[in-house]
């Protein structure tokens, strides 16, 4: 019975070329336009994007270097010692990172370095406006000089904490840190400091050490971003479309026929829900299929992708049945019109479909993640960055709760028997 209703719904959608064009064609066009026009902006070449990076040093570098040179006095031949101590400034690796790399004019255009002290660390971690926090542990420079010059077996490591919600900035910072690491490992550092190459036993992996990446494994291109943004936004229109078709069924008395045929109004209700979920799912798949073929948007974790799509579609089904129930109740197109013209725009904006607005405004990101499209979008972006199911479980849980809530509210607002007219 439910299948009969869904099948009919599918036929109706198929026979509505304008509607189809709007549901499938429009997002595809938008992805193409936005993804292409904004690709340079997304890839960080545009100075409008600024990443804030916090830099925390646990101990004074200059003292470490002096301490290190003091220690050398006893063991090192004075000639060699002089050549090292004459270059104190050049031994300050962290200083190099801060001033030469982050201080580079080009980089300064989009990275703002904020040097703070360790007592602020917890506060920084709470503050979502930072794209990354670079933490230099105690005696990092000392240990590193020991490793480089004395070939001691220590592993100094710099810890970099990325903010998982800053899609663009994160990749910029990551590339800078990598660049720094390369600058170190390759002989650049050596040449620059005029140190005896034989003294320096460069260890390629050991110097910068481990970079603690939270969610910044793959970078997101503008086509990735807008494929997701447009998909999660436009699927909301299918809810409005099916909702208004359902209201039309009431207005032209088809719904009466359904009831008179002895079909429970709950069967109809479920039919509307499943139609919204199923056709929402199909719409998403078509858009992503296009994104894959045309723009090479691929999913590293196909299972996670499918799980998010299924749960997101269920949430869309919830929206569909809620819009339908409310429309039946007030018996007017107002609800679906208002939804597709105003609410969708607001939700898309909060969810980041147009612009990664949550990157700079914590409140908006939080609100965005409490919209189905925003939660879906965050989950999709996480998957693209290389996350698995466990990292996106929060969003999936939200989508599920959202779906259940909308279905319950819809069920309570759906007119009772005999009150449909």
């Amino acid at each position: 019975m439910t299948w009969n209703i869904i099948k009919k719904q599918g036929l109706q959608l198929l026979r509505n070329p304008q509607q189809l064009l709007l549901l499938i064609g429009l997002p595809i066009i938008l992805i193409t336009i936005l993804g292409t026009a904004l690709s340079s902006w997304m890839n960080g070449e545009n100075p409008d994007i600024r990443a804030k990076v916090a830099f925390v040093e646990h101990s004074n570098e200059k003292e470490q270097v002096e301490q290190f040179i003091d220690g050398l006095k006893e063991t090192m031949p004075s000639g060699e010692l002089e050549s090292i101590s004459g270059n104190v400034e050049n031994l300050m690796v962290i200083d190099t990172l801060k001033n030469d790399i982050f201080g580079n004019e080009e980089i300064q255009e989009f990275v703002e370095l904020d040097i703070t002290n360790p007592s602020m660390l917890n506060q920084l971690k709470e503050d979502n406006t930072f794209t990354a926090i670079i933490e230099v542990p105690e005696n990092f420079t000392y240990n590193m000089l020991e490793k480089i010059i004395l070939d001691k077996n220590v592993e100094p490591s710099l810890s970099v904490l990325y903010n998982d919600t800053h899609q663009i900035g994160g990749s910029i910072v990551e590339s800078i840190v990598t660049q720094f690491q390369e600058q170190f490992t390759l002989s650049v550092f050596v040449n620059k400091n005029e140190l005896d190459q034989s003294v320096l036993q460069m260890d390629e992996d050991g110097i910068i050490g481990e970079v603690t990446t939270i969610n910044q494994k793959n970078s997101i291109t503008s086509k990735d971003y807008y494929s997701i943004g447009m998909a999660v936004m436009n699927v909301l229109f299918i809810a409005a479309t099916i909702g208004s078709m359902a209201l039309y069924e009431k207005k032209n008395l088809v719904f009466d026929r359904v009831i008179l045929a002895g079909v429970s109004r709950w069967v109809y209700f479920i039919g509307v829900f499943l139609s919204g979920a199923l056709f929402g799912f199909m719409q998403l798949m078509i858009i992503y299929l296009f994104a894959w073929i045309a723009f090479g948007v691929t999913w590293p974790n196909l299972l996670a992708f499918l799980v998010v799509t299924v749960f997101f579609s269920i949430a869309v089904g919830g929206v569909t049945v809620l819009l339908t129930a409310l429309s039946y109740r007030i018996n007017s197109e107002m609800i679906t019109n208002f939804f597709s013209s105003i609410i969708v725009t607001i939700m898309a904006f909060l969810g980041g479909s147009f612009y990664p607005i949550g990157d700079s405004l914590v409140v908006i990101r939080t609100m965005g993640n409490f919209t189905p499209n925003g939660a879906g979008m965050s989950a999709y972006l996480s998957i693209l960055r290389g996350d698995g199911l466990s990292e996106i479980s929060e969003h999936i849980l939200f989508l599920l709760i959202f779906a259940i809530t909308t279905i319950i509210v819809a069920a309570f607002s759906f007119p009772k028997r005999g009150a449909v007219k």
Partner: protein
Amino acid sequence: MIELVELTKKFKQIHAVKNVSMFIEKGEIVGLLGPNGAGKSTAISMLSSLMEPTGGDVRYLNKSMLKNPAPLRKVTGMVPQEIALYTELTAEENLRFFGRLYRLRGTELNKKIDEVLEQIGLTDRRKEVVNKFSGGMKRRLNIGVAMLHDPELLIMDEPTVGIDPQSRNYILETVKRLNSEKQMTVLYTSHYMEEVEYLCDRIYILDKGNLIASGTQEQIKSILSTEKTILVQANRLTDEFVNAIKTNPTVNRIIVGEMEITIIVPKEVNIFSWLIKLAEESGLELSSVNIKTPTLEDVFLHLTGRALRD
């Protein structure tokens, strides 16, 4: 077979149906006649269990259907006032969808679809989408959908609104045929008295929620036995002429058309010569003055002082 007992429906502002009692026997064609807004659709909705009445009862085979309307739903087919179809779907797809709702399937469903298409004369248009249909064809399919489950009682709510005369005749003939060949009981709602007069064995006349007359055509028309209806046709009408008739104390009721006036007077009154004199005085040329055989329209006029169609 079916009985409405003092059925009442109050909406927030409107008392749409007031204490309406009716009955329908098996095999009858019963007419429910009334102008727009009389409460016909509301009464039908309550009868068919789509709307809960404010008061009264709907009884089928002597059982109240208010709590559990399933037995009644099973035997009724409802032709709604609107074209309750999916216009993007073909005739056949519509029939298939609604047939499935009635739990028909497989060859049984196919047979039924063929049969209904034959009855409504759309067999060779079955693969066309309803959008492409004329108003009359849509109305026919609207009826066809209600017949898929072989209902004993067909309730038709203004099934001929807005279509050409030919399609209208086709529909009227179909109703007659269904009644005579398949013994289908029909409740036919309309504001066209000719249709009701042509089709129905018994008639109920509804106005502003009240039943104002009921019975066979003869019984209803006998209401007019104490009055007669005079139809006056002229080349034009003047206010002076109309007002003079209106103020004549022997005239009971008057309804003014563009070039004709219907006048109801007591049977014994003779105002022929008076009318002709009046016309002369007003400078009008009368083309005809006739005593009409009473119609349901006249009965309605007699009872309400208004025309059935405004």
